[in-house]
């Protein structure tokens, strides 16, 4: 069934969009990532104009994250206090990110920079997570439980705050900084930023994996809602028809994904996410390295 998208001005298969939304939704629920880093490139691939894809994806992430976070609230795996601290950082970062993005666009080559950002961040994070999870699995097989690092330089910082749900007593500076940097990257790369925030929360802040997913979803809702409004009012690129189709598939997928995630061990979950991140990174890197089949591309004059 073909459906014409009013803002994107293209006609696409409705079931294809539902399916894409569903698959990305499962992953989003499992790992607590918005799925934007997967969905945005997929939307480019099926012919949605990039500007519309990025803006609409932000709106869709709001829906799938909301659905996911409700499931986490029920299980009490959301650290609200930590979420709010991350959110404050995230909003500041998103606003900064938009400024940086517009500056880069004026310089040209913003496409390349976004792609390089993807390759570098996905590569580094995916690689680190993969190695760490492999080590963790090897250690648990050996009989010893993986030790949690209790003390590092982060614990020496001022403005300490107690995060009861996470069982942490740390300074608010690291979570604020994580929020800001994720916000900047989210605005530049057009994603929720969960794939950066989840590892940052685990490895930098030392939060328990079970709490990380719900808390990151909580923060993502607000940051992406902010981004959606920004895109809708400045670029007019949010396609609600596209968003509805993606989110119908996405919210159902997210529910399934959250349930799968509960049944799996944290290490397995992390190694799967690492593999997924590395696969996307590899694909993007190949696009940059291999000679493209079409060397030319059409862009609208005066921007993008």
């Amino acid at each position, binding site marked *: *069934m*073909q*459906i*014409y998208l*009013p*803002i994107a*001005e*293209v*006609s696409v298969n409705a079931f294809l969009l539902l399916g894409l939304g569903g698959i990305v939704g499962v992953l989003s629920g499992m790992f607590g990532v918005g799925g934007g880093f997967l969905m945005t490139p997929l939307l480019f691939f099926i*012919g949605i104009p990039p500007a519309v894809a990025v803006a609409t994806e932000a*709106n*869709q992430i*709001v*829906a*799938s*994250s*909301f*659905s*996911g976070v*409700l*499931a986490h609230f029920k299980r009490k795996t959301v650290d609200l206090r930590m979420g709010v601290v991350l959110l404050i950082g995230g909003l500041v970062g998103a606003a900064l990110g938009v400024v940086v993005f517009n500056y880069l666009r004026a310089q*040209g*080559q913003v*496409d*390349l920079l976004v792609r390089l950002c993807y390759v570098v961040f996905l590569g580094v994070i995916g690689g680190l997570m993969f190695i760490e999870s492999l080590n963790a699995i090897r250690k648990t097989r050996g009989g010893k439980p993986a030790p949690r690092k209790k003390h590092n330089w982060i614990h020496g910082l001022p403005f300490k705050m107690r995060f009861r749900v996470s069982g942490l007593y740390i300074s608010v500076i690291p979570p604020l900084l994580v929020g800001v940097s994720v916000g900047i990257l989210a605005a530049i790369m057009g994603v929720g930023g969960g794939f950066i925030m989840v590892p940052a929360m685990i490895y930098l802040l030392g939060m328990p994996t079970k709490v990380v997913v719900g808390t990151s979803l909580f923060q993502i809702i607000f940051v992406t*809602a902010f981004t*959606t*409004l920004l*895109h*809708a*009012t*400045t670029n*007019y690129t*949010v396609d*609600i*028809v596209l*968003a*509805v189709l993606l*989110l*119908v598939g996405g*919210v*159902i997928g*997210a*529910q399934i994904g959250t349930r799968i995630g509960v049944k799996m061990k944290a290490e397995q979950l992390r190694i799967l996410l690492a593999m997924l991140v590395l696969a996307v990174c590899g694909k993007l890197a190949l*696009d*940059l*390295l*291999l*000679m*493209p089949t*079409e*060397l*030319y*591309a*059409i*862009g*609208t*004059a*005066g921007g993008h």
Partner: protein
Amino acid sequence: MRRWAIHLAAGLALLWAHPAQTEEVVLGLSADKVSITTSFEGSEILIFGAVKRETPIPEGPPLEVIVTVAGPSAPLIVRRKEKRFGIWVNVDAVEVDRAPSFYAVVTSGPLRTVLRDIEDLRHKISVPRAIRSVGAPQSISDATLFTDALIRIRSRSDLYQLRESAVSVDEQTLFRTSVQLPAALTEGDYATRIFLTRGGQIVSQYQTTIDVQKVGLERWLFELSRGQPLIYGLMSLAIAIAAGWLASAAFRMLRT
């Protein structure tokens, strides 16, 4: 007597100066309005017509018909990738001043035999001529490659079409053809031109427009997103959050 002679001369001159007037197009379209609805899958427009003439069919080369349909034009940039530091990046860019979002040329015979190059140049009929590109930077010597690429990319998605020998002409009087509009269509007035040619020379031309417009829900959403962007954005968020909550509630009901 002298006066009469002047009249005759003037009349003859008029006849010679406007040979095109002897053959005129009477046109019909299967639709002069295309409505883009939510389930829009593209549209086929039948174009048919007759040649009206007061004199018998002229001797010489047969009558040929060329039909063009052009979507709204817009300036755009064509960029070319090159390998720099091991990765492929956009290096050169050429600005195209005007390129139609859709352009179809349908002819009754091979384009080069039914239309002389000089006429093509004057009326901008063939696909490359319909694109106007002047300002290529000095540093780019192969600017035509960029317009070739534009045509190649758009032809691949059926946005630019050249269909030769696709107009059927009966008795040099009746003609009919069809133009397939793809699903990914831009709104606007689609200029439709019909040219009658003999021996590659245009003898008559006719112009009309096909109105392509979004209707219903499509129209409403489009207007809202442009006119009231904040309300549109908030509505999008509300729908997203409602859908997220509904799905979660539905799953809870399924579980219990």
